[in-house]
């Protein structure tokens, strides 16, 4: 198993995978609690549009996909704020628009490129030093915004109270959507565009099932993200599977375990309260 670590490409995939897992599962708790899972999907497809444009222009995909996806994230937040349309409606429109643009760009590319395949399904082979630098930058952004965790959580559970307390809630909406957009673009190489919204949501959703408090949920989510990426990438290497699918399958397994735990704990609690009620009467 550890022989995998002898390969440079595997080392790069692990470093980038771990860093993006921390980011995705950290922002994931806000995505899950704010009911924005679909945003991950929309931004993943914006990334597709950006990557396709980069391939057409023969540029480094990251440098085109980052501004493209961030722009879409800001537009989604802006249109939602200004129109009062339901978030899934707004996201759905930009989702389709980016996808359509991506398809147009791809259809114009003359030469076949494996890069497109890497981005769609995720690959441990394609991680470059640029990708790693970008992932380090993403982690750096988390560290400098760490003190906003409490403020974001406050606006997540009770927006009206946060507004009354003059928290810059709208500014934070934009900030969060941009940070999530960056995380998605940088994770795309490893996890793949088609699976990235799951990468954002499953660790947080699993953590939600077994946590009573938001701090616990955040910590557990990041731990699940990190562990599942390590196992997933190892499986990808061992069994020659696309890395994205491999990671998501491991995450789905963890989700199932958390679901079972929460059901057992729930059943026990209700049994306990039932027997308490019986002994009272």
């Amino acid at each position, binding site marked *: 198993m550890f022989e995998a670590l002898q390969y440079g490409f595997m080392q790069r995939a692990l470093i980038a995978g771990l860093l993006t897992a921390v980011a995705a599962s950290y922002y994931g708790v806000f995505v899950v*609690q704010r009911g924005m899972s679909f945003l991950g999907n929309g931004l993943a497809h914006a990334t597709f549009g950006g990557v396709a444009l980069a391939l057409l222009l023969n540029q480094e995909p990251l440098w085109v996909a980052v501004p493209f996806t961030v722009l879409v994230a800001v537009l989604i937040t802006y249109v939602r704020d200004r129109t009062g349309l339901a978030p899934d409606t707004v996201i759905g429109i930009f989702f389709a628009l980016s996808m359509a643009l991506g398809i147009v760009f791809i259809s114009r590319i003359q030469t076949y490129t494996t890069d497109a395949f890497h981005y769609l399904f995720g690959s441990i082979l394609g991680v470059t030093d640029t990708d790693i630098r970008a992932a380090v930058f993403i982690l750096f952004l988390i560290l400098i915004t760490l003190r906003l965790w*409490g403020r974001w*959580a406050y606006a*997540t*559970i009770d927006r*009206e109270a946060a507004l*009354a307390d003059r928290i810059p809630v709208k500014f934070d909406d934009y900030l969060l959507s941009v940070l999530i957009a960056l995380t998605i673009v940088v994770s795309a190489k490893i996890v793949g565009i088609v699976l990235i919204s799951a990468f954002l949501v499953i660790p947080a959703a699993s953590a939600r099932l077994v946590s009573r408090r*938001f701090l*616990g949920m955040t910590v557990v989510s990041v731990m699940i993200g990190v562990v599942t990426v390590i196992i997933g990438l190892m499986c990808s290497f061992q069994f020659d599977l696309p890395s994205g699918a491999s990671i998501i399958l491991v995450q789905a397994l963890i989700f199932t375990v958390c679901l079972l735990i929460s059901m057992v704990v729930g059943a026990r609690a209700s049994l306990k309260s039932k027997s308490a009620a019986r002994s009272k009467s």
Partner: protein
Amino acid sequence: MVNVIEIANVSVRLGDFLALRDISVNIQTGDFVAIIGPNGSGKSTLLRAILGLVPLESGRIKIFDKELRMIPPEWIGYVPQLKTVDRNFPAVTCDLVTSGIHRSWPGILTKKDHESVSEVLAMVGAEHLCHKPLGQLSGGELQRVYLARALVRKPKILLLDEPATGIDAVGEDYMYSILDEHLERADTTVLMVTHDWLTARHHANRVLLINHKLIAEGPPSEALNDKHLRAAFGHVGHAHDQPCDGASDV
């Protein structure tokens, strides 16, 4: 007498609807003001305007003689009408109350947090709920916890939007006794929206009767006469005949 809240010629437009029209009133230190009016008459909007949550179309509001943004947010405690808390959020009661101290969600509660929270939860008769998940609170329990969150910051101004909604009659009396007791000890000014003018008569020293405009204002015995009530509600019935505005929120 200091004007705690000075409302001068305030109008508020919601969409294309003028919800408040040219309201002027001054509220002084230690006042317990009941805001009374029929459903949809702009009571909640008035509180939200004071908090800066809706823009003013015209007029101005001053708090302690200053613009709202010059006043620390901790000076104001607010219990909103629509229970806006996401009950699916993984949190226990003492987390929510602590958020009232720091204006931020707590990670780890300090010993000092615990002391303040226990004290205020005991005050509202909810100390046993401290470690209970929010999702498991009843409507009435949540209402008390909300009051605790507003009180924990020791506010100078308390804005309550139908705080008795969802509480049973005993709980309601209890809640008013908490408030009365708190007001005796603290220098807090209270604005409370209610549809129940019997309660207003008992606990408030001043009444604002509104129906988009200010219909009457003054001590309950003067403001709540038949003429004014008819102007506000269109008829004079018993308070409890009024449909309970907001009851469906619980």
